[in-house]
């Protein structure tokens, strides 16, 4: 067996080892990478910048711990941005774990010094209305009546008693909707049942798996902007001027991608070279 044939027959465990090193080693270093903010993220940021302080933003967290590495940094950077700009946050979840993820993100953000100075209060600056079963039907119902769809918040308080929810009847009283989605129900359902019937302004953060499916909605204007995967999250952190977890992980991401590209190139080279040899 020559070198190329040995390469093709390489034990995949060696490749796993290389990937593990390529992911783990960069985490020990702090490298400042130049991250360009792409137009799809810039548009989302611009749409948020156009909101005056006091605007109500509905945040729907539709993911579970399995998608945390990609979406949790997006949730944290978004909450940070909203608190800094005095945008009021109404949290819901179409997945059972969504509101729990929101609380985890809030726990971190509310302890940051800049945010502590602002002293956001529950019920006035942000609320967590929790999860309700029904998937896309929940979005449909919110178009008519949000307090009826979420009669109690995550802690069991009556929605109508929350100061922030006074005057919030349906989507007409919401200035922007931000959706973090890992699958179904998620951004697609928000477009189908929220954007087109109720004309809501929707921005989304998706796992990189789902992002390609969402691009058609960007081109047609049904979505104002999209954060695709951890890179999208890093771009948003750069756009808001607060680099955090997603930016930190970009070095690891870049090194692992470079390694995968290298393996793809040598693998294909070896494959075509050995095929040619066999043909000859």
């Amino acid at each position, binding site marked *: 067996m020559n070198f190329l044939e040995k390469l093709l027959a390489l034990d995949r465990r060696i490749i796993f080892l290389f990937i593990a090193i390529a992911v783990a080693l960069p985490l020990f270093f702090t490298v400042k990478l130049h991250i360009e903010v792409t137009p799809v993220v810039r548009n989302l940021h611009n749409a948020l910048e156009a909101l005056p302080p006091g605007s109500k933003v509905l945040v729907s967290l539709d993911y579970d711990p399995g998608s945390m590495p990609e979406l949790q940094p997006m949730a944290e950077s978004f909450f940070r941005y909203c608190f800094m700009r005095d945008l009021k946050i109404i949290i819901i979840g179409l997945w059972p774990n969504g509101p729990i993820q929101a609380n985890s993100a809030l726990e971190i953000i509310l302890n940051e010094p800049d945010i502590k100075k602002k002293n956001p209060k529950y019920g006035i600056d942000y609320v967590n209305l929790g999860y309700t079963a029904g998937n896309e039907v929940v979005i*449909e119902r919110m178009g008519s009546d949000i307090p009826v769809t979420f009669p109690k918040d995550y802690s069991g308080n009556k929605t109508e008693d929350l100061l922030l929810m006074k005057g919030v009847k349906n989507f007409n009283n919401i200035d922007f909707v931000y959706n973090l989605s890992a699958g179904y129900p998620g951004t697609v359902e928000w477009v189908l049942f929220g954007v087109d019937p109720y004309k809501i302004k929707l921005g989304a953060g998706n796992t*990189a798996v789902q992002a390609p499916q969402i691009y*058609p909605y960007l081109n047609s204007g049904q979505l104002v902007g999209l954060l695709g995967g951890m890179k999208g999250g890093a771009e948003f952190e750069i756009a808001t001027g607060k680099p955090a977890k997603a930016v930190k992980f970009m070095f690891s991401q870049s090194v692992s991608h470079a390694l995968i590209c290298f393996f793809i190139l040598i693998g294909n080279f070896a494959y075509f070279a050995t095929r040619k040899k066999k043909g000859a």
Partner: protein
Amino acid sequence: MERIGIWIAALLTLGIFSFLYKDNPFYKFCESLFVGISAGYWFVTTFWQVFMPKLADNLVAGRFYYMIGAIFGVLMLLRLFPKIGWLSRWSLALVVGTTAGLYFTRYLVSNGMIQVQNTIIPLYVKGNLSQTIGNLVIVIGTFSGLIYFFFSKEHKGTFGGLAKLGIWFLMLSFGASFGYTVMSRMSLLIGRMDYLLGTWLGLIR
């Protein structure tokens, strides 16, 4: 207490990762534990997040019409009894019919008409070469992709050529999608590595 939880999570992560080397009893144990706990967790979540707020609380509040939904739910479960399993077809019919009705016009508008509307774009834009090329790619790609999924005619001759072009466009988009997904998987691995090296071992901040 939190420290014990972190250790358990880390060891279970390593147990699942051990499958990458080869199948082993440690992996089998972690797999069985995961299957068992997930079944239990799913049951508890469904009970407290769906059954209680959507049915029990409504019945207690006097909204007895929610029993209609409960009855249909029970009928669905009768599927498991062969003699009276046919009753579940009513529940299934309700679910399928409602879903079809709810989705049909939404899909037609959001995924059909609006997308077609945004694909009816000029093939030539005066003074803008990049947009002209972009528009041509979109229109030809969409058209040839639709040709590929046309099942009433065999893929021969010009039609077959267009279908082949369609599958090339599809494969290019699958490649881009694959790349995005590789990024996603790497992100998940980075998240786990951060947990193991940072939260568990404290080697990184």
